[in-house]
């Protein structure tokens, strides 16, 4: 007996099932895409490229508030094979009444590590005393235009100053939500002295005379400097004047165990893991959301079967076996489930993009990047199929 050609399921009733599967898939997609987007964006915050390591303060509770001796940058620069390094001073600020992160940089060094495209105006130089460049997102959000002069207040210290917008840049990274200024501006607003930066990024892995600089080479230099204890705190350490560096240069003592050296992505992941946030845990949370809503999907299937009890009983009395009826229901409802799952995923992505456009998808003042993760899509379809199959095969038919 073949039932495939026999259309006994009413479309209006199937629509209710499609609706609940679509809404559940949408909820799963929104949860998974946003959580994984946050994780991905945060991990890539200091650079995704291989060979970028970060020298940071182990004792800091956040990646934005640590302090490391800035003179280490010059010692590391002296290692043969290290070509690029960037000391950075992060300062959480208030600008036009909105929270924003200001990153103090040495522009020449920074642009070697991070690819920025200046959309309007120009890039700052270290001697641009009261200038900044704004990331595209922050410029749009706060209505910053070229040559605007704005008041920036640091929140970790009672400092505020006027900065003029020299340019607007785009990097297609979370940096688009930040403003960049010369490093000493970051130090003032952070409340740090000229001897400290929040972190130092170093590009390693460059081969010189058959030898590649590794993380251990950098660690060795840091350990040597720590044991040297160059001078009492804050005293000038006879550093040679370097070209272009206009702020006072100081060497201070530090303990090697306070300084961490990690790959950029591991460094950021390390902070997330301190709070139990891993890619796996976020994915598990998203799956839990789907399974919690799956009870409603199972209910949807039961309702479809209850609504067609009359038709199914007639088919049973005509000789259709339970197995045949279940197989037929599965064959007829599965495509609807897959379609609903697809609609839900697409709607989830569209909703997230809309939320992002409205500026509501931000964590720590950085826009969460949204990307259609193939794993999430595959999981969504798999769960929808699995749930449909289990519910129909376990239900009482006829």
């Amino acid at each position, binding site marked *: 007996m073949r039932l495939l050609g026999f259309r006994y399921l009413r479309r209006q009733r199937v629509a209710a099932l499609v609706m609940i599967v679509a809404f559940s898939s949408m909820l799963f997609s929104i949860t998974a895409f946003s959580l994984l987007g946050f994780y991905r964006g945060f991990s890539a915050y200091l650079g995704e490229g291989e060979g970028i390591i970060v020298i940071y303060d182990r004792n800091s509770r956040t990646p934005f508030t640590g302090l490391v001796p800035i003179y280490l940058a010059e010692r590391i620069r002296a290692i043969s094979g290290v070509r690029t390094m960037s000391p950075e001073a992060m300062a959480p600020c208030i600008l036009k*009444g909105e929270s924003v992160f200001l990153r103090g940089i040495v522009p020449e060094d920074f642009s070697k590590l991070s690819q920025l495209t200046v959309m309007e105006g120009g890039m700052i130089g270290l001697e641009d005393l009261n200038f900044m460049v704004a990331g595209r997102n922050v410029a749009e959000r706060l209505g910053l235009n070229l040559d605007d002069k704005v008041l920036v207040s640091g929140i*970790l210290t009672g400092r505020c100053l006027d900065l003029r917008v020299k340019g607007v840049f785009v990097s297609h990274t979370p940096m688009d939500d930040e403003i960049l200024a010369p490093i000493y501006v970051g130090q003032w607003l952070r409340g740090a002295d000229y001897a400290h930066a929040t972190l130092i990024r170093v590009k390693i892995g460059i081969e010189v005379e058959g030898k590649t600089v590794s993380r251990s080479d950098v660690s060795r230099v840091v350990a040597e400097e720590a044991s040297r204890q160059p001078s009492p705190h804050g005293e000038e350490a006879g550093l040679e004047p370097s070209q272009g560096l206009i702020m006072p240069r100081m060497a201070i003592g530090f303990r090697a165990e306070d300084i961490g050296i990690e790959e950029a992505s591991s460094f950021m992941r390390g902070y997330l893991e301190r*709070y139990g946030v891993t890619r796996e845990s976020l994915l598990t949370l998203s799956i839990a959301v789907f399974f919690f809503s799956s009870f409603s999907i199972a209910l949807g299937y039961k309702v479809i079967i209850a609504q067609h009890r009359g038709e199914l009983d007639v088919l049973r009395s005509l000789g259709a076996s339970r197995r045949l009826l279940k197989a037929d229901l599965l064959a007829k409802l599965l495509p609807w489930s897959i379609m609903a799952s697809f609609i839900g995923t697409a709607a989830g992505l569209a909703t997230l993009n809309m939320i992002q456009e409205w500026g509501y998808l931000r964590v720590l003042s950085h826009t969460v990047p949204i990307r259609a993760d193939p794993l999430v899509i595959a999981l969504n379809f798999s769960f929808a199929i699995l749930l449909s199959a289990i519910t129909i095969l376990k239900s009482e038919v006829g």
Partner: protein
Amino acid sequence: MSSLALKSLLRSSGTASSIVAIALLVAILSSAQSITNYINFQAEMLGKLVYVGGPYLILSGNATSIADSRVDAGLASKLAGLSCVRWAVPQRIFEAELETSSGRRAIDVRCLEDARGFLERIGAYINGTTPGSWFEAGVGEVLARAYDVNLGDKLELVIGGKHVKLKIVGIFRSQTESDAELLALMETAHMLTGENGTVSIIEISLQPGVNSQEALSQIAQLLPENVRLVQTQQLKEFMQQMNAQTLAFLNLWSIAVYAVVAAASYIISTRLLAESSYELSMLRALGAEKRLILTLILTYTLTVSFIGSALGVALGTAGSQTFATMLRWFLPSVDLAPFIELWQVLQTIGLTVASSVLGCLYPALRFIHVGFMEKPL
């Protein structure tokens, strides 16, 4: 009759699974809320570790920058007369062009009545002395290095076509924004800008130990309408905005959860009507009005969604707390203690019930508009 009918509906086999379906959806929401509450609480606690004692600024109301601001200079002496004010320093800050060998460069000039007192307050070190007359100036170390300015140099400043030569009598390091500024006396500002009687800002500091709320309200009474008082260190506002960003997303995300609740409620009421069609049609045949049938369906949905949401809040909160405890077993460094507030419980229950009612309306209305004789018995 209606209470009996409701009892028979509630005793139907699908009620328990309907309650569980709603409870699980609400559990998703309340667990997310409880975890977010803890994260926001931690952020606030972290913010409290930072000492917030920065000075206050008085700026003109519409100014977006210090350079744009104009405040009556006489206000400073009135403020200084208040017992709660430790000091009130009027400052004139403006942009001028500095003639250098490589051309003109824009710099900020800060002019004060007492340059020495200002440098002492910001803990500056100085090589040389502080300006003592209108043609003298001090220069910040960063500015001095950037434009190769030395002690004893005569700098030519240009503002609005007016040229003035200032002698550099001191180079200072304060590790503040003043290191990139030229520091001069207020007389110099009058000479350069020709403006008298107005300043850019008045920086004030409160006496130690005074109640800041009371002090600020005292100060506010003295301020004219066109000026505003801002705290330089706005940590509280920053943390509030950080938390608001998370909550804004959570609120939008919860709309998706309530949409699933509404869809689930649609399914639940459809199932109820399919399974209890006989009883409801019988009621109609016995003379029950449409309104009674609608009330019965709505009451059933309200009851199911209320029990489901209360159960869901409990399940979600307890579940997230259990999850946090288990996480601590595997990752001892993780410190997570989710909690939920009473108003959130009430809000969740209220919104769940509202979404459920919304979801059940269409099947309920469709059911009562079909004549009882058309319904299968």
